[in-house]
């Protein structure tokens, strides 16, 4: 067992150890990138727009993302940064995106997590919660239409499930038996709104029978549990049996956005969920199982920090788009 194994992306994911190390790498990178964005760059005024991060929820996008094949379509929510990393988007592109530079995925046309890359089969969200849900159905329809075995993954929060688009999208996909895996990050809040004011059922998954689709609840802070559920879900969808819903119980370990101190969240919840931090939990497991040594993990973090330092430097050197680009891209020829 050597340090490089921890650091390298090609770790064999067919073993638990491989999965653990791979997952840790992505989760830690997501955490580091987002911490810098939320707690450094934003506060330094280097990011002028909204900032939404997935702190505490990293096991979800990583657990699911690692179960997808490259030709599967991903429709991330605003707390799924790791999906971009897993698909090979470089952290420097992400920093550039947040800073409105041409090096970002949208060349400054949009900011923060409002990005996509069709060549990587990542569909950009629009802000409106759940708008991606019907779109994911359409992407899945195309995958099925073309006769592939690929599937679409659609990510959203608990709050998004209140929207009409969520309902229409699930129903449409269910009726058409489309290969969609729905991944709900139920972090108990939508901005300041707690679940009790969002829905009158106990779980988001209680809604699945209304669409005639299977659902399961998983511990969203356990990347193994998420990964296993994602594999079950993907198997179901790939087999032609239609959509499948995974509800990941988790917690947003920060404010809704960088400017939100989240005083509406009781202290007890912060305390409770700090204990369940998916990254420390995974590291504990790795150490217990002796999949890696403490120093190796420390080296991993150090390596990530270095990579992130360099990425920020790169992004800050990436130029702002020239005003002449303003009119480009409204239509194919414009």
């Amino acid at each position, binding site marked *: 067992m050597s340090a490089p194994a921890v650091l390298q992306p090609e770790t064999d994911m067919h073993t638990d150890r491989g999965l653990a190390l791979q997952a840790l790498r992505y989760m830690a990178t997501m955490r580091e990138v987002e911490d810098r964005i939320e707690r450094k760059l934003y506060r330094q005024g280097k990011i002028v727009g909204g900032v939404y991060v997935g702190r505490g929820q990293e096991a979800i996008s990583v657990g699911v993302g690692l179960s997808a094949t490259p030709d599967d379509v991903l429709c991330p929510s605003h707390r799924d940064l790791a999906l971009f990393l897993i698909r090979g988007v470089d952290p420097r592109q992400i920093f550039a995106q947040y800073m409105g530079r041409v090096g970002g995925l*949208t060349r400054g046309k949009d900011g923060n997590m409002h990005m996509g*890359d069709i060549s990587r089969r990542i569909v950009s969200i629009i802000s409106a919660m759940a708008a991606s849900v*019907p779109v994911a159905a*359409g992407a899945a329809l195309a995958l099925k239409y073309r006769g592939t075995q690929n599937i679409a993954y659609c990510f959203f929060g608990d709050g998004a499930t209140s929207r009409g688009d969520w309902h*229409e*999208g699930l129903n449409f996909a269910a009726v058409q038996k489309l290969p969609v895996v729905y991944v709900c990050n139920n972090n108990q809040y939508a901005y300041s709104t707690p679940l009790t004011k969002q829905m009158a059922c106990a779980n988001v998954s209680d809604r699945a029978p209304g669409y005639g689709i299977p659902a399961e609840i998983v511990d969203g802070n356990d990347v193994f549990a998420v990964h296993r559920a994602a594999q079950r879900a993907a198997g179901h969808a790939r087999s032609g049996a239609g959509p499948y819903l995974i509800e990941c119980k988790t917690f947003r370990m920060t404010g809704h956005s960088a400017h939100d101190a989240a005083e509406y969240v009781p202290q007890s919840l912060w305390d409770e969920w700090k204990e369940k931090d998916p990254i420390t939990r995974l590291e504990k497991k790795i150490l217990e199982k002796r999949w890696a040594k403490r120093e190796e993990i420390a080296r991993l973090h150090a390596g990530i920090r270095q990579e992130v330092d360099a990425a920020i430097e790169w992004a800050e050197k990436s130029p702002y788009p020239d005003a002449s680009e303003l009119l480009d891209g409204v*239509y194919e020829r414009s």
Partner: protein
Amino acid sequence: MEMTYLEAIRQGIREEMTRDSGVFLLGEDIGVYGGAFKITSGLLQEFGEKRVIDTPISESAIVGAAIGASLMGLRPVAEMQFADFITCGYDQIVNFAAKCRYRWGAAVPMVIRAPSGGGIHGGPFHSQNPEAWFVHTPGLKVVAPATAPDAKGLIKSAIRDNDPVLFFEHKALYRRIKEDVPDGDFTVPIGKAAVVRQGRDLSIITYGAMVHVARESAETLEKEGISVEIVDLRTLAPLDEDTVLASVRKTSKVLLLHEDVLTGGIGGELAGRIAEKAFHDLDAPIVRVAAPDTPVPYSPPLEEAFLPNAAKVTERARWLARY
């Protein structure tokens, strides 16, 4: 071949489905039933369930699914049962479809067909002309054919276009007009207006069903010695400003005509462009004839009073010509 506006649209769709296996249709009651107006009649039988999809009553999912499929390279043609229901999929259209290319360079080659317009006693929810909302939304193309050949040529262009196109079909034209439509494969370019009648004294700029109203009026006026030029916009976004301005420069008088309600309609936008770019060519005030600012009423006398018609156009055009 002689065919109706409706048949022309169907033929255009059918040809594109035959040509490109990525073209498919989705909407409410469009398959087994052939659509509320029977536009897609026979296509399920010909192309099968994969390519003609009967959907739940979910305009937002219909549009959203079209977006998702088009992002993956298919060419969906979605039907709104009536244009009035397009408001139920509004966010998907104006925020998702319209902005994909600009924001992240992703093409959304989809068409939304929407039967619009009054004159069929449909009342407030089966008669509206929602085009101006979309003309006001950067990133969308908006098409509104007035004739059978244009309907065929434009639906084909819309399906081939790599941007989202809203295709407004005027319900009152579906079976009312029958025209010669060239056989086989031809397209009418999006973004080009047509001068459908040459004239000297004034220009009527219009589109959709009102083209026929303008023609009727022009014939009446001709007998009075007034020579009317008619520009059929055909595409509402992007607007063919050049053709409009050229006509205004030629006749120096302009009447802007639409069935849609006056305030905030396309007439205002045209007036803005003309009053900025052809101000000195104008010999008279810019006249707008449009529906009044009310919902579309149901009862025949009210609907008749609501809709612009040849008499109303003729009266204002006469005033303009004599000005």
